[in-house]
């Protein structure tokens, strides 16, 4: 087929060195960049997590050290990992992250599913603008959108002012610096990531299936449970992973909206790194987080292929 000639190296003159041919460059350049700056750094996380913290610049000891001339030793230090197990703080933070990520994923689904469904069912010329309206906030600054909630949720903020002015409450509700504020912030920030893959699967749903079911006397709610919901499963799972995985490592939201009760692993990593200057411990935390995220990531890759469709 002609198209393969275009993208193959077939048309190049034989004198062109192999590495300079189109195909090699097209594959090689991005591969090298990602390999160097995305893949390789993970090995450094592993390496530093096994080293000892030290008062030095950078603040850790090398794994490979020269003992006497020419004699090198490798000293692996598993102390960081043991410490993570010993101090309940870290397991609590891991559990806190799992909890926040799970609950907010479910909340996003609860709010996002009807939205995606309504957009998919709306008239043709309405769909694109409605979808754009979901994506647009994602283009404005994340930090500033989280900041907006501080003004709304704080004790003398807009929500409390409004609730008190209509006489629903007498004393301001304490929402800021509680887990509730974190959930609101997370759902708000990650909702588009749920709606988009859901929309992508729902829009391809074959309406004749529903018509057939209703002709055969199937009730609407049963149609939904037996047809729409199972068929939209790839979108549900892709969306769920797109929310769950990044929320697990979220730092900004628990830091700005959460309080001392909200322990999350991303925030803890930040503290270990910036405040305590303990790079090895922060690396060990990162390594643990990475391991935890492998399963949802594999799931994501699996369902993404099935709900292939983007922004």
């Amino acid at each position, binding site marked *: 087929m*002609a*198209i393969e000639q275009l*993208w193959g190296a077939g*048309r190049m003159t034989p004198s062109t060195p192999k590495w300079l041919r*189109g*195909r090699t*460059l*097209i594959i090689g350049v*991005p*591969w090298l960049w*990602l*390999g160097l*700056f*995305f*893949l390789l750094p*993970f090995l450094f996380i592993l390496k530093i997590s096994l080293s000892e913290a030290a008062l030095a610049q*950078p603040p850790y000891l090398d794994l490979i050290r020269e003992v006497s001339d020419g004699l090198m030793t490798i000293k692996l230090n598993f102390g960081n990992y043991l410490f993570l197990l010993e101090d309940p703080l870290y397991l609590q933070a891991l559990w806190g992250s799992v909890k926040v990520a799970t609950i907010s994923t479910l909340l996003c689904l609860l709010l*996002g599913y*009807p939205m995606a*469904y*309504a*957009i998919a*069912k709306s*008239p043709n010329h309405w769909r694109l603008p409605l979808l754009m*309206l*979901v994506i*647009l*906030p994602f*283009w*404005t600054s*994340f*930090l*500033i959108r989280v900041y*907006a*909630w501080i*003004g*709304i949720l*704080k004790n*003398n*903020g807009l929500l409390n*002012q409004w609730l008190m002015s209509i006489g629903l409450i007498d004393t301001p509700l304490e929402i800021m610096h509680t887990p509730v504020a974190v959930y609101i912030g997370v759902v*708000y920030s990650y*909702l588009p990531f749920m*709606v988009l893959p859901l929309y992508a699967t729902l829009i391809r749903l074959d309406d004749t299936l529903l018509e057939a079911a209703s002709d055969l006397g199937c009730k609407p709610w049963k149609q939904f449970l037996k047809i729409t919901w199972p068929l939209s499963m790839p979108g549900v799972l892709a969306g769920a992973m797109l929310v769950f*995985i*990044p929320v*697990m*490592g*979220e*730092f900004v939201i628990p830091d700005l909206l959460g309080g001392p009760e909200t322990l999350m692993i991303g925030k803890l990593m930040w503290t270990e790194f*910036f405040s305590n200057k303990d*790079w090895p411990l922060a*690396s060990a935390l*990162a390594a643990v*987080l990475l391991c935890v995220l492998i399963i949802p*990531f594999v799931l*994501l890759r699996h369902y993404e292929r099935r709900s*292939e469709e*983007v*922004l």
Partner: protein
Amino acid sequence: MWRKMPLLMTALMFGYAFLYGPIASLIVYSFNENRLVTVWSGFSTKWYAELLQNDQILGAAWLSVKIASVNASLAVILGTLAALALVRYKRFKGRQVMETMVTAPLVMPEVIIGLSLLLLFVAMERVLGWPEGRGQLTITIAHVTFSMAYVAVVVQSRLAHMDQSLEEAALDLGAKPRKVFFAITLPLITPALVAGWLLAFTLSMDDLVVASFVSGPGATTLPMVVYSSVRLGVSPQINALATIIVVTVSIAVAVAGVLMYRKEKRGI
């Protein structure tokens, strides 16, 4: 439609209210005269005037714009190459790894990306002497790494839905592969390239976490300034800044959307 599915429409409206309410409140209260952001005391544009005299914010904004433009341009090139590789070459060594490397940055927690890149830069500096110190260069490299994944995803979907018969026709008529790429493929995927550039630009303008890890003294980006000021509490200047960002983004997205829509309509 309202009559057919009232519940669904209510959910949709609630969703949009939820998404836009907070943004609207930011904009409204940026014109508040009171220093206490959420206590309305009268219309004023004085916070905009103060913002325009805040050298720290302006300097950081300029640095962010510089990083974001370089980042977006590099990310478009690398992301497009990655997309071409994945869509056009069905089989090559390391394809699985590349697919993973293109998907992973989209969901990878920023704290991990930031920390891992910092450790890499530190090790590289010790062994190779490059990059010397950390700042604008290291932030740009870090941003390109995750932005190019987004570009690749956008371009990939465009390439996959593209009609290949035009390329084939040109080849059959004897055009050289390079010419076909520049005369046919590139114009066809231009909307995706524009969308990818804008996306990469905003991602970079917006990034606090990764930049905080890989930045050094002297390189303070806009989100870093905003973050340190927000930590101290709400501030009317940040509201003014937010309004400017929201309005700029909305205009850019609207213009890009209309242009692409027209192009699509002309059948190009």
